Each structure stands twice: as C-alpha cells, then as structure tokens.
C-alpha cells in the first residue's frame, strides 16, 4: 500500500524549514487555524509520475511579507512583490521536495509557481492539510493528489 505523508509529516517538514531559515524558533509555528484575511499568497509545486499532485503553502499577505523579509534579511515594510514571489516559491520548493522524498517515486518536481489568492488544481483533491499560525498569521500546507490516483 502506498504511504501518503500525514498531516503531522507536513507539519514536521514545514517546521524544519521555518526553524532553519525563518526564525530559528522551534515554537515559532503554532498548530491551529488562524483567519487569513482577504489578502492571501499561495506557493505551489507540482509532482508528476508515480505520484501526481501538488504541494501548496498558502499564507496571509503579512505572513508572506514576514517570510520574504526573513529570507532576504530585510524589514517587512521594504519587501517587494518580486521578493515575496521568490520567497514563497522557494519555501514551496523546499517543503515540496521534502514531501516528495516520502512519496512513491519516481516523480518529477516542477518549478514553483506563486499566485495571489488561493489556488485549486483541476481534477485534484486535497488529501492532507495542516493549518498553522506564525506570528499570529495563517499558514496552511496542503498535499493534493490527482483524483484518478486518489481513487
């Protein structure tokens, strides 16, 4: 039977990335959903092959700016849209690459894409999701799978 990483796995991987590169605080990410507000940003990578689906990081606008500021070592107020896109894309790539290593292979990992708002993948469904809070802002990590594989 194929092992699909659990919501706990998603949280552990995300926590490792956050602790390593964003604030160095293992307790910086708290479990539980937080209201995202109107302005959300989503970073996404796709997998195709033995496992076909996506890994998404969706966060509030302020969380996206905090993340970019941490990665670029600058103040959140000075962060540009390009830096938010770069940061969210790289975070999605890191979380996605680590999730991929737990999934059946071989599969190819796409380059990341970043959109403002939420993203849905046609024909795919969420199979795992974890809602976290970072600096009082929302961060949701989800694993998607193509419906044909999930069936």
């Amino acid at each position, binding site marked *: 039977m194929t092992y699909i990483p659990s919501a706990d796995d998603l949280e552990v991987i995300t926590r*490792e990335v956050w602790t390593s*590169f964003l604030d160095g605080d293992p307790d910086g990410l708290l479990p539980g959903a937080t209201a995202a507000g109107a302005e959300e940003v989503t970073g996404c990578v796709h997998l195709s092959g033995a496992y076909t689906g996506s890994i998404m990081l969706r966060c509030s606008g302020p969380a996206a700016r905090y993340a970019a500021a941490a990665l670029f070592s600058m103040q959140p107020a000075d962060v540009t849209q390009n*830096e938010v896109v*770069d940061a969210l894309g790289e975070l999605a*790539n890191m979380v996605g*690459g680590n999730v*991929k*290593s737990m999934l059946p292979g*071989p599969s190819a990992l*796409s380059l990341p894409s970043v959109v403002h708002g939420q993203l849905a993948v046609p024909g795919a469904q969420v199979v795992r999701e974890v809602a976290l809070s970072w600096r009082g802002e929302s961060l949701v990590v989800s694993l998607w799978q193509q419906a044909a594989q999930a069936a």
Partner: protein
Amino acid sequence: MRILVVDDSKAMRMIVVRTLQLAGYDEHEIVQASNGREAVEVISQAPPGLVLCDWNMPEMSGLDLLKGLRAAGWDVPFGFVTSEAAPQMREQALAAGAMFLIAKPFTPEDFQDALDPVLA
C-alpha cells in the same frame, strides 16, 4: 578560492552565502548565477574551485549543467544543494560526477561535513 553558487532563487543564494560564512568559509570569493546557462558563462570566463548548485532551475537544470561540464572535460568540483534528497537523486547526482548533495533545509554543520573534504 572562488565558489560559484547557482540557484534560481535569489533568497536561496543569499542563504547559501550566509551559511558559507557561518560555516567558516568567509575567506573565499563567492560568485553567483541564477541558472545552469548563466553558470556555464561564469565558469567559462574563470573556472571556480567549487560549484554549489541547485537541481531544479529554469533554462538549464543543475544535473544538465553537471553533465555538460563533464562532457566538455571540465572537472571542477561540484555539489548539489537541493530540496530533493531521496536516495535515487543522490545516486543520480553521484553517477553524474557530483561530490556531494546537501539537502535543503541545511545547517552550517551540513556545509562543513560536505565541503571540508573538498576545500581542505
């Protein structure tokens, strides 16, 4: 020594450079490229002593860069810094001529473990 850092993410290039400094390699000159094609230009102008390269990039992937360098007879020491660290990726990297693969996220200690044998 010159160390070439290749990654399409500017944020990740900055993190790699910071980690090199934290790991004690701050006496080395760091140069950067944002994809394999840019890296070829940098390497052809002045070969570095080490290439630290992402795997998944637009224009030219890290693996294609490494294969191209080896096919052209360039034997510059080459290591991957990538989010993909499954055993088959490591095997693929080593088979193509990489000396090591550092998984993202990483620590300065990970860099020391991989780079000390190369830079010693």
